[in-house]
């Protein structure tokens, strides 16, 4: 009867071990499935975080570039406006010059004609009155030459004055066009309307930061889950191995 009970107790022990092994195996399998799934999840999340980080850097870079762009557009607008005023002043001066030069030429031509007339008169008087000063005659001849020369030079000057005026007027009109364009660009960049580039750039930056934060948190959570699952798997594995070793020892002991 005693032997019978001992044998029964051995069977109880073996059955218990076998049941525990089955249970541990089940926990181990479940943990393994979880760890595998979480491995995928963690790697996916890591990639997402890396992408979100790159996206955030790009968005920040874009925002900075945009600020530079805005600053440059503002600079251009200011300097173009100033330039425009200066060109307008230059054009006005150039016009005045052209007008004054015309006046000079007109006066000079009149004076030159009078000089020629005086010269004729003195030459005729010299023929009537040989005592007339030779110096006067030669000086009048010189004056005629100088008058011719002056007229020729003045005409050249007049021509170049008009050329200058034309070039300056062209500069003035193109400068006005440039001013309008830079002002339009400035308005486009600085407008704070929701549909504008300004708002879009800032919105993209804020969204990139928010997404990075979300992805980073998800990744952290997934990592924690993964670590826990791994610990669970490792524990289940240890338990399983220990139980298996126990069963092997027990089987050997009862001679199975």
């Amino acid at each position: 009867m005693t032997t019978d009970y001992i044998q029964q107790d051995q069977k109880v022990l073996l059955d218990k071990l076998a049941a525990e092994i089955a249970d541990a195996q089940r926990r181990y399998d479940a943990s393994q499935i979880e760890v595998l799934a979480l491995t995928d999840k963690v790697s996916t999340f890591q990639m997402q975080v890396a992408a979100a980080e790159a996206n955030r850097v790009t968005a920040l870079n874009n925002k900075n570039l945009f600020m530079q762009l805005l600053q440059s557009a503002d600079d251009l607008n200011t300097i173009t406006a100033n330039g425009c005023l200066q060109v307008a002043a230059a054009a006005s001066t150039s016009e005045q010059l052209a007008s004054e030069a015309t006046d000079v030429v007109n006066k000079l031509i009149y004076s030159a004609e009078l000089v020629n007339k005086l010269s004729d008169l003195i030459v005729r008087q010299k023929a009537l009155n040989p005592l007339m000063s030779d110096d006067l005659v030669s000086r009048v001849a010189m004056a005629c030459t100088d008058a011719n020369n002056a007229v020729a030079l003045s005409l050249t000057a007049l021509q170049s004055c008009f050329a200058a005026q034309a070039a300056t007027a062209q500069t003035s009109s193109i400068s006005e066009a440039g001013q309008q364009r830079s002002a339009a660009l400035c308005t486009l960049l600085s407008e704070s309307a929701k549909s504008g580039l300004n708002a879009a750039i800032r919105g993209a930056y804020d969204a990139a930061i928010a997404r990075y934060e979300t992805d980073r948190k998800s990744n952290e959570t997934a990592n924690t889950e993964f670590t826990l699952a791994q610990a669970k798997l490792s524990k289940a594995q240890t338990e399983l191995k220990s139980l298996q070793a126990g069963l092997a020892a027990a089987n050997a002991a009862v001679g199975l």
Partner: protein
Amino acid sequence: MELLFYGFLYYKHWNWRTNKRSVIAICMLIDFAINVPSLASRTCRCTNFYIMNSYKENLRTGVTSTLADIEKMITASNASLDAATATLRFAKGALAQAVEQEQKLSADLAGKNELLELAARACYLAGDAMQTAGQQKAYSAQSASNSAVAAANVQVAANAVVRLASDLGSINSIVIADDYGSAIAQLTGQVYETTNDTALSAEKASMKAMEASIAAAEVPSGAIADIALRLKNIADELLSSIAEGTGKTATALANEVANRQTLEKNVHQADAVAKDLGLENEAVKASYEFTCKQLNMGLSVPAGQVKSDSFTVVFDLYRPAFSGGESVVSEYRIAIVKEEKKFVTSTSRVWAAAQAKGVITFSDAEFGADVTSVNKSIQLAGLTDIDGDKLFAGRRYVVFLQVVFTDDYKKQINNFEDMLSAPSNTFSVAKP
């Protein structure tokens, strides 16, 4: 008995399954028939082995063994089902993430495309501004150069005019000194005045020419062109950066779509596997119930009714095969046994426990003659298992039902052993 058993199984499967599933059911049934040896042969084998025991004891051993085999199948099936369910759950989780990510990327891409268009427009405008500034620079240089030439020419002309005026000054002096007649004197005076006036104008024009030249040179066209170029470069850089980001997002979206499709397929497959295993699980559980009902007096502890302070034992009352109507049972005993001891629990152990008040006893007289099945709620307070240990939460137990026959009946069948059931299903007491 055997025919009835398989017939019942077949009937149940036929009802549950659609045409497609019935094939699986039949396969299962064949499988079951192979794996679980027939009760007849099992009983026969046991009879050989336990030749010294009573017939009832032999039957009990067979039933215990059959139930244990089905329980093993249930355990294996539960494990497979759990694994499949977990796989399905994780696959669904992964799919949900992928769908969410796809939506995020899709929204992101839409925003980036819009941004790209806006940036492109800004870039065009910057390009226009740069082109105009370049033209202005060229015109401005021409204007400065022309103005400088004009200033020089006007200066030279003014010098010539001054020289003429000086000639006339000398002539006028000579004419005034020598009296050559009124005509010459008058004309000389007139010419002297007009040339002087012209010389003054020429000097003024020369001054103006200098001013014009300075003004034309001072226009900051070079600086304007430089800033416009910088502006264009920044706009280009911004546009290319945004375009690159948009491209990356588009690629990521395409990858995510492919990923989502793969995950959808995975979920579909995992779902199919879990469904099949679920059906197998139901079938094997049904066969356990059926076997239990037929061979083990329907003894069970329904999992749903296990609480922290009580649990319920369900069983069918004993009815002898040939009965004249009066009860042959004096009392029923419910023994609670640790699960690992379920194969070594015997009538004698339960008897010993009954002496030590380690079992729950109630008389057959409690139940009316028309009652066939009993739901017995058992309070945990002060309760022990047959080893005399208190029950505690988390540990697994089974119950045994012992049927104590009336002395008359024992004499009638000439067997003074009481009947002990096979172990019930396993249960754990809930934590309070």
